[in-house]
């Protein structure tokens, strides 16, 4: 394509795109006027007048919508970060067992991965919550003196009480993501050439040492992209909290939309909060990636 033609093409494209966007926005304005919905963010300062079961920071129904949204964001962040850690631990363990020589565990973990990966997260969450946690009635399912206690009141850990909603979400998200993370770990380990194994074995290094000191450091860079995308998925999947009554950012947006009818504004807020979250995770993983590269191999 000649340069002039290209330029012409680009200008045309700009006009077409702007025109299309303009039409959509025009439609939106017409429709907003027609339905009397309007578009502004003044309502953010009005009192929310709904209460929340879980709030990491002080909150009362007389606080503003903006504060309620922020609490929702904190709730989301809370569950994302904790299940991110738990998912990584479980996933790594499963991944190691999957590639391990122990055939029994290898089969079990393979079964675990297929079952978890091939059922929808939403149903898993509902099972965890309604069938799992709530079904335990009042007798505790697993309790180790006063330190750790799982019951239908949630999880108690060192006096820290986690609600059943949070616990179910934590478990559901972690277990779902762990199956994917295990696959990432397996892929990473398998990406290390077989020669490396033979090399350290022939040097007389023990299997354990060789695995952790030689294979894993080489596999680490291969983990990062897969892990990043799994973490992003986990963050996005946390919005399913609404199905089991946990007040995350999406659930609070949903309540606000119902109360105020501000669907467009709430959607924009939701969009922005996830773009920020996305950026955050990508940045952190980028830093980790860089530090691995620097420290390493």
């Amino acid at each position, binding site marked *: 394509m000649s340069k002039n033609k290209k330029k012409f093409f680009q200008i045309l494209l700009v006009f077409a795109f702007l025109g299309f966007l303009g039409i959509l926005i025009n439609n939106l304005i017409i429709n907003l006027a027609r339905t009397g919905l309007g578009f502004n963010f003044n309502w953010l300062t009005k009192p929310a007048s709904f209460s929340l079961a879980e709030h990491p920071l002080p909150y009362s129904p007389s606080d503003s919508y903006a504060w309620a949204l922020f609490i929702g964001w904190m709730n989301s962040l809370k569950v994302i970060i904790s299940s991110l850690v738990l998912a990584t631990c479980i996933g790594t363990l499963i991944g190691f067992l999957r590639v391990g020589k*122990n055939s029994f565990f290898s089969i079990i973990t393979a079964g675990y991965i297929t079952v978890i990966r091939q059922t929808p997260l939403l149903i898993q969450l509902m099972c965890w919550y309604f069938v799992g946690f709530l079904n335990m009635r009042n007798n505790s399912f697993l309790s180790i003196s006063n330190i750790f206690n799982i019951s239908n009141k949630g999880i108690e850990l060192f006096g820290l009480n986690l609600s059943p909603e949070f616990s179910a979400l934590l478990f559901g998200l972690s277990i779902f993501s762990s199956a994917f993370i295990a696959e990432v770990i397996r892929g990473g380990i398998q990406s290390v050439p077989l020669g490396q194994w033979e090399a350290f074995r022939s040097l007389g290094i023990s299997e354990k040492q060789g695995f952790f000191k030689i294979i894993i450091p080489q596999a680490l860079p291969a983990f990062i992209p897969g892990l990043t995308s799994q973490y992003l998925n986990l963050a996005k999947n946390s919005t399913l909290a609404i199905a089991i009554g946990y007040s995350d950012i999406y659930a609070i947006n949903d309540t606000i939309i119902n109360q105020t009818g501000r669907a467009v504004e709430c959607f924009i807020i939701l969009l922005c909060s996830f773009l920020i979250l996305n950026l955050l995770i990508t940045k952190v993983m980028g830093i980790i990636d860089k530090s691995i590269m620097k420290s390493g191999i």
Partner: protein
Amino acid sequence: MNNINPNLNTNSFQKLKKFLLSKSKYNFCNFIFFVILISLIFNLLTWIFINSNWKVVTSNLNLYAFGSFPIDQQWRPTLWFFSLLSITFITVYGPKWNWLRKNLIFGWIGTVPLGIYLLNGGLGLNPVMTRHWGGLTLTILITSCSILFSLPIGILLALCRRSSIFLIQKLCSFYIDVMRAVPLIAVLFFGQLLIPLFLPVGLEIDRVWRAIIAFTFFVSAYIAEDIRGGLQSIPNNQIEAAKSLGLNKYQINIFILIPQALRVALPAITNHLIGLFQNTSLMSILGLMELLGVSRSILANPEYIGQYIEVYIWLASVYWLFCTIMAFVSKKLEQKMTINKGY
């Protein structure tokens, strides 16, 4: 943990044999886990066969399969299921005739219009409104339509992202990045509630189609990324070779790049498609009567209040079955494609 076996090609039977015959010191540990597993399975089985009441499932099978599709017309979705099953069967186990293999793709594409025709009616069949579509039929329809639409759009987006025209490239990158950043439920919410706000007054898109549009928007961004990865794996000299053969830009894309990129990206794409099938369950949060949505409505029937455990377990197994079939077919396809590489 210190016995790492990098060779994973042994099949599970051999593994089992090895496990049973091995005298490793881990056998005790294995044994304990084995006992726990067996007791878990035993408990589950006792619950399934003795303690549970499957009436909520057995007496509503029709609803789970077809939603509120008119009973005298239910042969239509059934026929569609059978056509899907048979084409799956042919793909996996069918004869290796060349012409069949080449045209199978058209068969797959054809199932979608066939499904829409059978469900929607018209042209000799009684028309059935989309409000009657539901259950597994709707789940499969949404999945297959979204797959059909999102594949070409994904390919187009991937090509555009590599375009030499600055603006196209930026626009596509922006679209892909934004779509991959937002949760699916937000996109579906947009599709169900906000798309009408962006349409001119009086223009209405049906609810089912809005769901399909939203899924297509979402999945095509992921597919585009998969295909971009596939495109990057193709060495540059292939393009040069094609150019020297006198192929133009479009021919290179269609005959050289896309088929190879698709082959490389196939595992990733099928993973996303399986995810798509699972994620249709999210539509129940937005009130569509697909498999999970229909189940939630059945649970509102005073007869079945509180019997959700049976329903959830039943749903989980149905989804699991279908996803496993999808995974199996994709695995077979991958094998077939590598065999047919021809060099």
